[in-house]
């Protein structure tokens, strides 16, 4: 007697796709208009990305800083007195603020992260 267990091969493909979609889906839902993702990497590995962030004056902004590097970084924006403190490898930190004064503000890595640590800087432009 032939036992046909109805297991469609496409089930395998479905499982695979579900996993991929779950990943993309979750990351997509996390991003909102006033949210800026900022990747932290040592200068020789790509530096802050993006290095220039543009935001609107008076609009609430959430900075999601992801350390995708293998060493500890930090985030410090002295002009608006913003700090995220230490961000260890693999960690994600969020800071929310509402810029009131237009202008250009520099931000820096606040943890000695490489020989080129001093070059790990970026610009926040408030229009």
């Amino acid at each position: 007697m032939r036992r046909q267990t109805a297991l469609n091969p496409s089930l395998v493909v479905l499982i695979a796709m579900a996993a991929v979609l779950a990943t993309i889906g979750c990351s997509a839902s996390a991003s909102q208009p006033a949210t800026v993702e900022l990747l932290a990497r040592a200068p020789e590995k790509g530096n802050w990305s993006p290095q220039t962030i543009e935001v609107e004056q008076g609009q609430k902004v959430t900075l999601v800083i992801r350390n995708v590097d293998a060493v500890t970084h930090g985030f410090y924006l002295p002009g608006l007195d913003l700090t995220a403190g230490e961000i260890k490898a693999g960690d994600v930190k969020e800071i929310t603020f509402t810029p009131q004064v237009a202008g250009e503000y520099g931000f820096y890595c606040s943890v000695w992260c490489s020989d080129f640590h001093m070059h790990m800087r970026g610009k926040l432009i408030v229009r």
Partner: protein
Amino acid sequence: MDHRLLPTYVLVASCLTLSACGSSGEFSGDLVGTQRTVEVTARKFEYKPSVITVKEGETVVIKLASEDVTHGFYLDGYGEQTTIPPGDIKLVGFTANKTGRFAFRCSETCGHFHPYMIGHLRVLPNRKYYAGVSLVVLLGIGSLAYGRRRREKHRTHLFGVIPLDWRFELTKYRPIRALFKSRWFPLVFILLNFFVFVVILVAGFAGGFSAGNVNFGVMVVWILWWVLLMTIFVPVVGRFWCMACPFPLVGDWLQRGTLGSGGRQKSWGLNKKWPKRFRNLWPVTACFLLSTLFVGFFTVQPFATFVLLALIVIGAIVISLIYEKRTFCLYLCPVSGFQGLYSNFAACEVRVKDPDICKTHTPKTCYLGNEHGYGCPWMELPFDMNRNTYCGLCMECFKTCPHDNMAFNVRPFGTDLLAERRRTDELQNRRGLDEAFKSLTMIGILFAFFLTMQGPYGWLKDMVMAASLGGYGLFLGGYLLLNLGLIPVLFLVVSYLSKKASGNREVPLKKIFVDFSYCLVPLGVARWAAFSLGILLPNGSYLPRVFSDPFSRGWDLFGTAGYQWTPFLTGALPYLQLSLLFVGLAFSLEYGYRFANRIFTTEREATRGWIPMLLFIIALGVFFVWLFEG
């Protein structure tokens, strides 16, 4: 050579080894009164000095500074911990009241090789090490004295206690047999693993060049999977992983046209036969050795893990379309070789219950397949199988046997090592130089892995991770020379000495070389398990974090994302590792003496021929005790 003096020679030789390895060397730092102050600088990925030697009872102060990025310091056994930001000097103080060798590890993620940034604190006298060496030597000499006083019972009983033919059939319980006969087993586990490996691949790709210790792919594959494989799966169950491995799933589906139902289906592939001269462990040994050349990348970098796994997945699919059945698993999968060889030591087996039933049963449905299942995908002949090397535990033979004549047995460890050739062995070259070489290369691979991942040498880590091309080239050259040249030649010399000592001129050197190589298997299994514990216990606590946040997106799926790095039981590590080594050594000696009796014709020849090999195994045991604790 006078027989009665042999143990004395052994003892003298061992004492010389002991004193050579155990030389105390200089103490570190400055001693004022009973306080010893040592200045240590940390840089990627080493401490300078990397080995600190102090005396028992001293008050030790370690002044720590970092040369580059934020590092950490955690001392096994003592539990002292601190972080070292660059520009600061941190002090760690303790009383050295525990003797032995203790690793200190970086506790702040500082780069790719961070989990393996290690230094050694040696608190002398290193009693654990001396006790370990003495025990190895005593065990060796003891086995000789014991071996010469063997009674008839020792021929049939392991250590004179456990009958070699003792079997406990698990499948005599109906639910277990029903489970093994079900089409869903082990398919359900394969599908589950398939899902996990998709997550691993995504995590590896998404993780890119970030730190491995916070990456799901790197952690699950190299800390969890590898360690389970080495400590439980292979030593206890054999090719347990092959049973649940998701990599051949797509290939199986392409070949069979279905995943669920049994029977002979039309294959999409070419279904070619694998060349006869490569039906052995040579190709898998080469694949494994080749992949270990990149150990400095894929064990620490998410993207490298992704590339390696993707290559294996693609390889499995392509090969399944060209060659028949599980050719990829048998002859090309990098982890197949040591699983095959070492599963001969496992305490489980799939075997025929009653060979007489098979003699009269035609056609051989276990090999050809029928409507209930596929013919052995591993191209074994289940009705005549007597070794685990090529048995992937896929359980198809349970489904295809109409007489329920297959059994899953629990057995004494390592009985396959004694298995003789069988009638059908020409189909696959079983016991031979290929397996001997696999066994021998695993010594050098462990040595290199241990020094790289658990040793204090920053220069070696730089070489293995290819900080400079020249250094990497030097590593490749030295590594291949060690594995393909020095160790096999050393073993050949020992085999030659064994032949000379036995006084038997007829027995071929190749037979001695091959047959004796199997007594390295139990010690091999044990030292890999010991090595794996040294990876899991310090680094296992990164796992809760990656389970909760597999893609480093700041998720917290199970509420464990904030779990901090906490070394687990690292103070007990030396005892665990030494115990494993002793157990492995005991089995090696027990089986080795049996091999001697098979290789040589008379008992007298066997005892004499065994001496050089015994000395080699004792030396190997001492070497590993030194590597782990010296």
